[in-house]
């Protein structure tokens, strides 16, 4: 019985289509576009970094004693963090050379100087410069191993930059979240301030705080849903236009369909709830 009345009350603001309601929805949408854009940029950046990292592998060159390679392989595999080791014989190395340079090394030099090697890949969490360096030095100690080569500089570069980038983007993200929340709360509070006389009257005739709050919260949640829908529309549109321009260069931009949509919708509902809860609180004492 009361719920019906509450719903009616809470929808009143919508029927009137007041400017303040539009402003509240707009503030939520704007906050979500910023947060959503940030999430997409962040995801793609992370994606790029991990693609680069994934390309890192160790080349382990062996001495000329090809016979012990199975033993060496076991020793390499047994090192913590190594995920696979593929053997490349002298002959295979020559084949690869031929493929890449179009000439047969045997005819150029009349013998094959290319050593046998292992191509070693690491487990995901070991693809950091420190850990990779430790693994490389361990491999180097294995008898029969001549040298270990990997793109050390690239890895160090990624590591130093990504630490910096992570802290910067965490800072930016935190600020963004804080500012947009503050913005939404303020806008909704302004909208609610227009109804402070009604709130006072409700208090006067004995409505409990939760009863007064409820219509505002229901309205806030509705605004959150509408706001996040608007934001998703804007983001998808921007994304579409953006990827049309860039698609040839960075073809693997990702968009996280379901997770992202759920996240934005959830954030919108939370923002609407949060904004109206704290917006109305000031007028309840």
């Amino acid at each position: 019985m009361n719920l019906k009345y509450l719903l009616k009350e809470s929808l009143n603001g919508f029927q009137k289509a007041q400017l303040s309601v539009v402003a509240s929805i707009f503030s939520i949408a704007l906050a979500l576009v910023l947060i959503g854009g940030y999430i997409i940029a962040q995801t793609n950046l992370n994606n790029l970094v991990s693609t680069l990292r994934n390309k890192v592998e160790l080349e382990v060159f062996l001495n000329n004693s090809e016979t012990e390679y199975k033993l060496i392989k076991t020793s390499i595999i047994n090192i913590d963090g190594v995920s696979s080791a593929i053997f490349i014989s002298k002959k295979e190395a020559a084949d690869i050379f031929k493929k890449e340079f179009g000439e047969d090394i045997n005819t150029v030099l009349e013998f094959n100087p290319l050593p046998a090697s292992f191509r070693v890949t690491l487990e995901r969490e070991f693809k950091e410069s420190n850990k990779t360096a430790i693994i490389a030095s361990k491999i180097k100690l294995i008898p029969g191993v001549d040298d270990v080569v990997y793109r050390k500089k690239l890895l160090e570069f990624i590591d130093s930059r990504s630490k910096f980038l992570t802290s910067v983007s965490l800072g930016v993200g935190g600020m963004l979240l804080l500012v947009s929340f503050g913005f939404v709360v303020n806008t909704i509070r302004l909208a609610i301030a227009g109804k402070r006389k009604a709130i006072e009257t409700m208090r006067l005739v004995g409505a409990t705080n939760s009863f007064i709050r409820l219509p505002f919260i229901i309205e806030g949640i509705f605004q959150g849903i509408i706001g996040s829908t608007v934001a998703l529309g804007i983001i998808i549109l921007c994304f579409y236009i953006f990827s049309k321009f860039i698609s040839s260069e960075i073809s693997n931009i990702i968009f996280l369909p379901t997770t992202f949509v759920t996240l934005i919708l959830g954030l919108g509902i939370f923002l609407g709830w949060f904004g109206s809860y704290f917006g109305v609180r000031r007028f309840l004492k």
Partner: protein
Amino acid sequence: MPNVINIQHISKSYEMGDQTVHALEDVSLRIDRGEYLAIMGPSGSGKSTLMNMLGCLDTPTSGLYQFNDANVSSMTDDDLARIRNKEIGFVFQTFNLLARSNTLHNVELPLIYAGIRKEERYRRALEALTHVGLEQRIHHKPNELSGGQRQRVAIARALVTKPSIILADEPTGNLDTKTGDEIMQLFGELHKEGHTIILVTHEEYIAEHAHRIIRLRDGRVEKDEVVIKQVKK
């Protein structure tokens, strides 16, 4: 005679920066059922503060407040809301009606919060509106009513829950003298019917309607005088 209201050594202060404003200081007061009381005093003497305290809209900084023998000082916000809903009727200078709702809905409002069914709400609201002579205006919005009529709606709303007391803060402040007199006449009738009325006013001639006058100055009770002996029941 049971006290409706019993306040003992009540103080209320507001912190304003590094300064403390003592709106009320050591006020003690007993109000009996059926009294007609006026609270007077110069501007800033604490009349509205006392009124808000009595109306459970605000709680004292220190002191005891008993309403119908229940200790208000220790109540939760929800308890206070329930007391305002069931036991107190408010009438303010600014009417405090919902601008978008019609007369009937405004008067029904406390009953909605009390969880009373629709038919019963309608019956009681109509009864209260008939009492103040507005049964012909139930579908009017506040802006379609005169000031005096708006105040009657507020009075009907104050009456509709059959409260223990009616609190009126400058109820004639926004009305011309003639309309103000009519409203005071209505309060007089309500008092004769047995309602307990507490009235805040600036005007001596308004206060003369009451049977007891309390004068505040600087947050303290300066004078508490019985103007007319109460009629024995």
